[in-house]
């Protein structure tokens, strides 16, 4: 029983307690206001809480599995996200080999590079090699119809769904003096801060939300929800300093960056959804829509968080 295990157990215990409270509240709300399942807001809330349980259990299993568990979990998240993303693109038959390569070559190679900790290659593999090679594969099929749009969509899908998501797993390979063997907690920190910010923005918005922040992109986002969620999530992030290599002030500052990136990432992904004429990316997670609906804020904050920590704290 090391300090790491103690911290991890404390953290999981805390999250478990939080979810128990949420489940009880959800149950009471349902009995009081929606006994016949008629109140969609409460039904949605309960579906979300159930999905949270599943996510926490999955993450815990991955954490127990160590590097292999975490890399495989996020590789699967990337796969599911890429599947959702490509479904909504206008790629044509001529992109078949480029897309097959994206799924069955680029994605596994990126995660293999993360697994062995080859920072110099995994940080440029998709932005340089995939960026140059996949359009060549597509061009060989000699279909020039909307060619630029198609190759741009493929590259953007890879950057969002594989490159960015893989940076969550890459946190494991950072070499921070005095923090050896505890990097899993860094992932927990990032995911908790981002997700709790989403939840708190939702809650503050439901309680106090009046002024819409981006009515065209995302009608449910309000200034009250944004400010309340950002502040409270930053405070919670600062309060989690004990699981990180940071002090409380640093943890708060990094949380603020992560929360802001997550918020604006959500707006960007909403804009993409509007462009494609859909409300959710998919349907895999009850109450949450698709994988990307849940991952969008992690996607935008993970690479920034990774590089800030690497620059400021890591030896590698």
């Amino acid at each position: 029983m090391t300090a790491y295990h103690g911290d991890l157990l404390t953290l999981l215990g805390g999250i478990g307690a939080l979810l128990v409270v949420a489940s009880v509240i959800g149950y009471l709300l349902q009995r009081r206001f929606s006994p016949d399942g008629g109140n969609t807001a409460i039904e949605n809330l309960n579906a979300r809480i159930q999905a949270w349980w599943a996510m926490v259990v999955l993450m815990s299993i991955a954490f127990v599995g160590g590097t292999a568990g975490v890399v495989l979990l996020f590789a699967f998240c990337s796969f599911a996200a890429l599947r959702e993303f490509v479904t909504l693109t206008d790629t044509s038959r001529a992109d078949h080999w480029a897309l097959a390569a994206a799924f069955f070559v680029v994605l596994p190679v990126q995660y293999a590079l993360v697994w062995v900790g080859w920072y110099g290659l995994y940080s440029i593999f998709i932005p340089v090699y995939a960026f140059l090679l996949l359009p060549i594969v597509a061009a060989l099929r000699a279909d020039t119809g909307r060619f630029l749009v198609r190759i741009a969509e493929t590259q953007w899908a890879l950057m969002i769904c594989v490159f960015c998501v893989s940076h969550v797993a890459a946190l494991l390979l950072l070499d921070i003096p005095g923090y050896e063997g505890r990097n899993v907690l860094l992932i927990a920190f990032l995911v908790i801060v981002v997700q709790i910010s989403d939840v708190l923005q939702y809650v503050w918005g439901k309680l106090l939300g009046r002024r819409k922040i981006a009515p065209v992109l995302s009608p449910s986002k309000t200034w009250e929800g944004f400010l309340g969620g950002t502040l409270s999530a930053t405070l919670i992030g600062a309060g989690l300093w004990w699981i990180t290599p940071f002090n409380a002030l640093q943890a708060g500052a990094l949380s603020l960056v992560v929360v802001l990136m997550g918020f604006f990432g959500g707006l960007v992904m909403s804009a993409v959804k509007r462009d494609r004429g859909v409300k959710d990316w998919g349907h895999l997670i009850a109450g949450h829509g698709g994988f990307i609906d849940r991952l969008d804020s992690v996607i935008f904050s993970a690479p920034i968080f990774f590089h800030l920590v690497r620059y400021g704290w890591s030896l590698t």
Partner: protein
Amino acid sequence: MTPILARLVGMAIVFFARFITAVRGLWQGIAPAAGRRVYFANHTSHGDFILVWAVLPPRLRRAARPVAGADYWLASRLRRFLGCDVFKAVLIDRTPSRSGPNPIEQMCAALDAGASLILFPEGTRNTTGAKLLPFKSGLYHLARNCPDVDLVPVWIDNLNRVMPKGEVVPIPLICTVTFGAPLRLHPGEAKAGFLARAEQALLALAPRKAETAS
């Protein structure tokens, strides 16, 4: 030994189909309940039957049998194993002669034995740009010979993008299978009118993609 192996292979195929397509069944016009049914679907890919099969609840899946061409499924040992043992296909002669078994009678016999059928009334894979090819008359003859059977239109969406004709590697994309309200032959309804009605019922299930069309 063969039945166990066939069942395992069936499970593996359904798992693989779900992995690639995350397929979801949308029961719009009918509930997923037991009953004598003919599911008739659009046909763009070799995987069409497997997607319908994968979204049926296990109990219904075990009773569902595709109707397929004997010439294709008896051509090799592997195909025979898949067609006869795994999918339990009702194998028909696509160019029936007078001496051979009558395909409509074969289908009715399977329905009478408690099976549901999965049928592709276009007769062949649609590799044209059209959404649907004109139906062959088989569906009409089946409706006339088995009048108490529900004919359920089933639209399979997106699978043609997963594996276009001539490609061997499937691309993971999300697919849906939509089940519409069942049809029956009206008393005295003519063949052309019935087939047109069935085609319309199937086309009505296709998701509108105006916003994503190029």
